[in-house]
């Protein structure tokens, strides 16, 4: 457990010792602001809530999270430090968890820095702060889901560009699987399969949390989703670390 903390600390500090932190946070804040105000008609709607802000998060994460996750393991493999890390007295799980948690906390920091939005709506009106809080939690959980996919794909290759592209495609799949349009394309499939597919959609779970209901099932969905992909990461590293 303590070694997870040590890895976490190194990784987390790593974001800030490189330009990654600054670039990621600035772009995240700019894009979330732009989406909300221009595309989301934040002012025109005349409603004091942050729904337009949160509605764009899945799409924001689709691009930004794979960019953050692509270096997690690909970089370790490219530079050979994976050999150093995994010959220290540490289990594969601790290494995977430590790196993942650092990336997740880092997105948490970026998300937390959007707090001026929250303050603004409170000045402009009387929003339901419970809903906003739940939405933040949902957004963070969803970010974790995206990151866990990125972690696994990044373990598959030394090439960060490939890691990025493949992660985006897979993440897109998990967003779209809840869209009626996409489900229609699979109209031939049996109903239980369709509902199984849509139950894996990030949108379904995120939207249900953003309504202000922190349902245990939605939380469990994201947590077990993360656990599954981290497990896949461990397996992939074990298989491919020699290359």
């Amino acid at each position, binding site marked *: 457990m303590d070694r997870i903390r040590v890895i976490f600390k*190194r990784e987390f500090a790593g974001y800030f*010792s490189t330009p990654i932190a600054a670039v990621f946070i600035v772009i995240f804040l700019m894009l979330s602001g732009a989406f909300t105000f221009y595309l989301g008609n934040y002012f025109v709607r005349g409603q004091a809530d942050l729904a337009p802000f949160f509605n764009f998060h899945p799409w924001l994460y689709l691009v930004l999270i794979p960019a953050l996750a692509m270096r997690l393991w690909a970089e370790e493999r490219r*530079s050979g*430090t994976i050999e*150093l890390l995994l*010959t*220290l007295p540490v289990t594969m799980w601790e290494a995977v968890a430590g790196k993942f948690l650092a990336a997740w906390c880092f997105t948490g920091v970026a998300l937390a820095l959007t707090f001026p939005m929250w303050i603004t709506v409170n000045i402009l009106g009387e929003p339901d702060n419970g809903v906003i809080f739940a939405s933040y939690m949902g957004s963070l959980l969803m970010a974790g889901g995206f990151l866990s996919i990125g972690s696994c794909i990044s373990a598959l290759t030394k090439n960060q560009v490939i890691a990025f592209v493949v992660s985006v495609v897979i993440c897109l799949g998990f967003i779209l699987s809840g869209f009626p349009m996409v489900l229609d394309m699979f109209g031939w499939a049996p109903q239980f399969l369709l509902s199984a597919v849509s139950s894996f959609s990030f949108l379904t779970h995120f939207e249900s949390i953003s309504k202000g209901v922190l349902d245990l099932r939605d939380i469990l969905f994201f947590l077990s989703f993360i656990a599954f992909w981290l497990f896949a990461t461990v397996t992939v590293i074990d298989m491919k670390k020699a290359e």
Partner: protein
Amino acid sequence: MTTMVEIKNLRKTFGSIVAVDGVSFTVGKGEVLGFLGPNGAGKSTTMKMITGFLTPTSGTVRVCGHDVQDEALAAKTRIGYLPEGAPAYHDMTPASFLTFVGEMRGQRGDVLKRRISEVVAKVNLQSVLDQPIETLSKGFKRRVGLAQAILHDPDVLILDEPTDGLDPNQKYEVRALIRAMAQEKAIILSTHILEEVHAVCSRAMIIAKGKVVSDGTPAELEGQSPTHNTVLITLSGVETTIAHDRLMTVKGVKKIEDQGKDGDLVRLRIFPDEGQWILQDVGQFAREQGWDVQELYQDRGQLDDVFRLLTTPQQALS
């Protein structure tokens, strides 16, 4: 001698490539074992299995009594490892990198600080301690890797090409450092610099195509050289053929090779019969003949020759 590393029938295949093919040996405390072998012989792959990074296809590795696969953590705490090319986190400074490795190994606070300053002094890193590793020269990077490997004073030290890319002074320092630690540890290092074997190893193992083809002290290895115990003589003012024919009459001489003329100097290499020492007899004979002997010495044998002989099958045949 306490056995520290015990390897049995170690094998590793990558698809159809057999990288390590049934290697067995033990290394005891106080030994410095040198892995010699051409590129692709399987030295690094063997080391990666000893340190637990790669899972063997078959066979076992025990480090200080712990099976590297079954009791990975226990084994890993006893090992210090410098991977090939000395990888390190390039955005960190040597100071923060060593702190990270120390903390991963369970060292904390003042103990860790003291340990880091000891190790930093040992490998001469003081001047670059707070510079990002990516800005360091190859020599410094290698020393950061060494510092990291000896930080926890491990019982077993695995060094993959520790002096590769260093200048002669740095090589000398690193070898001195390894020799100084040898008493207390079991050390395995790989190299393709043969002089290194004399400089640091108490035992040398030649590996070719994943197999151990020779294992012994550096002197024993040299004993396998075709030129082992041959006598080299340089004469002036004598015809080559005359010198050759007369020397053949000396007892114990098997054959003589002309090493080529240099001005009026005649150089001959004299091969003894199996197990014979002919240096004194040859010297006395030359004096009796009244030859002008410019040079006379016995060759211990060249490691290079043994190395080539054992690692290139075509030459062994010819």
